[in-house]
């Protein structure tokens, strides 16, 4: 953040890394939904921003006019030569390649497969809580939420847990360093793929029961995946699996810390958690995706040019009053909740079942350990900017 000039006009010059957006994007989106439902900026070489549910979903479904070749807006557009897989398949792949590349991953992330990871996830959460014993104030983002997905995904992939800081560095670079100059962006990508290459080589020599070995042994279009393809898919799982879930856990704890009635209700009615979680995912959906425009065209009156970016702010779609009653209210027993926190269409988050399990277990363990907690210093809370939004500093007083 802070690499670009501050925004003064959200309709014609928005920037999703702006500090104002990071701190509280909801009023910005609300105004845009009413007054300028598809905003535009010249930044990043041109970005469109639909904010209504109908427009966000129409673009998510339209894989003909919009390509997923890149899904993170920055100054750098991955070259078309990377197609059909794209930079991090299958999230960066278009049909028809996308189908089989995704199909290959889905069984690993099915609800049945995810169930098996629940006991170890609960054990991590318990360990993290145990390490906080005796403290009045803990940072729920730094001391708790951020560690859970890192450990889960490192174990699944077959990367050392002790590299947690290294992973977070990569993730931070890819997702939050989007306003950096191209040279620095590329250096970060090279470092990430260099790191993964070492581990992939090691897995080729010493296969084991993890996702890297599974992918090295997998076939697409009748051919074994080459190590570079494996590296790109591992990069995706690492990047997509960490900040996102960390953000969802942190935002949920933040809401409960500032909303005693909801916290007390969940402590007294733990069976409500699965429904409450969906509402927290709707209201504080962490992820905004992106597409590139395939060819020059007019879309809903907007003169879109080939290679223009389009942001897909699912969190704004989730607050659209035309789609949800009392869209701006968090109603933890909301029964009808067709939210789009995990996206819509063929790119529905492949890890959504894993993310939901992690979020549920993290909240169960937290609420059991700390039935009373509150924000220790509301002004100290800091949120990440860019396309994955969640609390990165979250001091919570846990001795009610």
């Amino acid at each position, binding site marked *: 953040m802070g690499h670009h000039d501050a925004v003064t006009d959200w309709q014609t010059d928005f920037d999703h890394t702006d500090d104002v957006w990071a701190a509280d994007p909801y009023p910005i989106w609300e105004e845009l939904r009413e007054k300028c439902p598809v905003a535009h900026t010249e930044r990043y070489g041109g970005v469109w921003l639909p904010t209504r549910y109908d427009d966000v979903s129409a673009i998510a479904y339209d894989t003909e006019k919009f390509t997923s070749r890149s899904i993170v807006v920055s100054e750098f557009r991955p070259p078309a030569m990377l197609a059909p897989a794209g930079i991090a398949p299958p999230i960066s792949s278009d049909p028809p390649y996308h189908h089989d590349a995704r199909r290959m991953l*889905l069984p690993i992330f*099915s*609800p049945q497969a995810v169930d098996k990871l629940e006991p170890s996830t609960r054990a991590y959460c318990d360990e993290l809580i145990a390490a906080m014993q005796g403290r009045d104030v803990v940072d729920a983002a730094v001391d708790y939420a951020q560690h859970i997905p890192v450990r889960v995904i490192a174990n699944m992939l077959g990367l050392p847990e002790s590299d947690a800081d290294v992973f977070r560095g990569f993730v931070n670079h890819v997702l939050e360093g989007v306003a950096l100059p191209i040279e620095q962006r590329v250096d970060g990508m090279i470092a990430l793929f260099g790191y993964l290459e070492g581990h992939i080589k090691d897995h080729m020599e010493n296969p084991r029961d993890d996702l890297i070995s599974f992918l090295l042994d997998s076939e697409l279009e009748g051919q074994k995946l080459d190590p570079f393809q494996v590296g790109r898919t591992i990069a995706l799982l690492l990047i997509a699996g960490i900040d996102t879930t960390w953000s969802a856990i942190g935002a949920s704890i933040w809401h409960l810390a500032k909303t005693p009635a909801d916290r007390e209700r969940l402590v007294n009615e733990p069976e409500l958690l699965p429904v409450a979680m969906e509402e927290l995912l709707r209201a504080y959906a962490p992820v905004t995706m992106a597409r590139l425009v395939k060819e020059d065209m007019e879309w809903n009156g907007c003169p879109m040019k080939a290679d223009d970016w389009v942001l897909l702010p699912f969190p704004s779609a989730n607050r659209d009053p035309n789609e949800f009653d009392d869209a701006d209210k968090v109603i933890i027993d909301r029964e*009808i909740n067709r939210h789009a926190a995990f996206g*819509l*269409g063929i790119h529905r988050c492949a890890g959504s079942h894993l993310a939901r399990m992690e979020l549920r277990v993290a909240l169960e363990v937290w609420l059991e350990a700390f039935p009373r907690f509150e924000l220790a210093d509301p002004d100290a809370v800091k949120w990440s900017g860019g396309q994955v939004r969640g609390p990165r500093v979250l001091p919570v007083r846990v001795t009610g």
Partner: protein
Amino acid sequence: MKVRIDEARCEGHGRCYATAPVLFEPDDIGNGHVIGDGAVPPELEHQARLAVANCPEQAITIEETS
């Protein structure tokens, strides 16, 4: 009442089998499938309607039989 899933629309969000686990189940990739012939006993009609209302892809339909 009977429930039906349009397999071409289902993307495996899993809201149906989370909301109405007696009526729907996941396959090996997490897509939802109707259990049995989709007939909904009267006491599960509310759950069936919630499954329809919570499917992000609007892939579930209800056929009213009587």
